[in-house]
């Protein structure tokens, strides 16, 4: 599915709505260049899950956990990983196959680990500064 996101407000609305449908074990793989709004979208998903903590960029520690919402949120940024094997060191299986929702920035770096049934959102810059194009697919 292709969706035009006109501005940040649409990103917010999209994230909050998406969050309503999420259940434990769901995985959302975000793919898109620097600054396309992966963290911004994750903030809205978190808001939709009822998370009250501040969501900040996980680039530095690779994964951050948020427990204050309806379902736990595990927020990954795997940009700095050089290979999918490195995910083992983080104990990723406990997150991916656990009772929370995983949102993964730069998921293309670890595509072989993304399980079936995950939602993939590819984000591209649009024509205007605030516009983004979402390409949404499910891995089946």
């Amino acid at each position: 599915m292709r969706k035009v996101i006109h501005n940040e407000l649409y990103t917010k609305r999209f994230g909050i709505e998406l969050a309503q449908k999420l259940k434990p074990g769901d995985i959302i793989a975000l793919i898109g260049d620097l600054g396309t709004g992966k963290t911004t979208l994750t903030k809205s998903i978190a808001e939709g899950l009822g998370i009250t903590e501040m969501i900040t960029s996980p680039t530095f520690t690779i994964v951050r956990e948020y427990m204050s919402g309806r379902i736990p949120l595990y927020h990954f940024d795997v940009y700095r990983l050089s290979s999918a094997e490195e995910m083992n060191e983080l104990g990723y299986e406990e997150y991916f196959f656990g009772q929370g929702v995983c949102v993964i920035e730069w998921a293309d770096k670890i595509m072989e680990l993304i399980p079936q049934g995950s939602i993939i959102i590819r984000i591209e810059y649009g024509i205007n500064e605030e516009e983004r194009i979402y390409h949404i697919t499910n891995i089946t």
Partner: protein
Amino acid sequence: MKDNKLITLGIETSCDETSAAVILEEREVLSNVIASQIKVHQAFGGVVPEIASRHHLNNINPVIDSALKEADITLRDVDLIGVTSGPGLVGALLIGLATAKSMAYVLKKPLIGVHHIQGHISAVYIEHKELEPPFLALVVSGGHTSIVDVTDYNKYEVLGHTRDDAAGEAFDKVARVLGLGYPGGPLIDEAAKKGNPHAVEFKRVFLEKDSLDFSFSGIKTGVLNYLNTQKLKGAQLNVNDTAASFQLAVMEVLTAKTIVAAKRTKRDKIVIAGGVAANSLLRQMMKDECERKGFDLYFPSPILCTDNAAMIGCAACYKYKSGLVDNLFLDAYPNKAL
């Protein structure tokens, strides 16, 4: 003990530096050995966690040995062991922790886990023997951007922090899109010296009127948008001008908010710490502002701004003297809050 003074062994492995230091009492550095992995990670354009852990593992023992040797002491002289327990990369933290724990166990000496950011703040004590809390601190690094009211050696109140990217992270990301390489901070600092900081007016993000929080994801996207517009126009990109303009925009916000926070808390001393505190423009702007507004300014020399174990040893000694000792169950906390 040495001359009846406490000896602390500090260990730091939270990110890409493996470091060990020997500290006499709170503030005297007998040795501070740092094995940097920056060269190793340059090829990848940033720290690669698994590679980082492996290098820590190889480096940790030789680094501790040289720290002891340089301080002219043996392990038996060590009175307490301080180690970074978070935040950081979990695999990297665990190497330092496992080493510290086994040493504490074998030597039967107290073990003290140190918050990395408390370490960065404590770095300032080492070179400014007269500095005592309370003061207002701006901690700016690769993973943090916080304004902290330091009310006592072990009492901190975070007044504001970044809502998205840390300042150092923004430097690293912008350096990447400008093709400058890694680590971005020092490279942008250098490039900016040759550029015009008013060439591009990037938006300064101050958030709500009274907020002491920061947001740097907008300026990252702002730089990208600017690059795209230049490309569409077929215009030549001036890297130095872009770097200088970006840097000024970030530093204006950091400086302004720090001054507001100091006024609000009625502190007369301001400290800047963390990797980004090495930035030449930030230092100059803070100096000018503090002079104009009547604050005393303190910052560490560049080597104590980036990750090092001397700051961890110093912080550990202060914690020890306040009775804040951990046991061998001490764990790594990758996302620990201050």
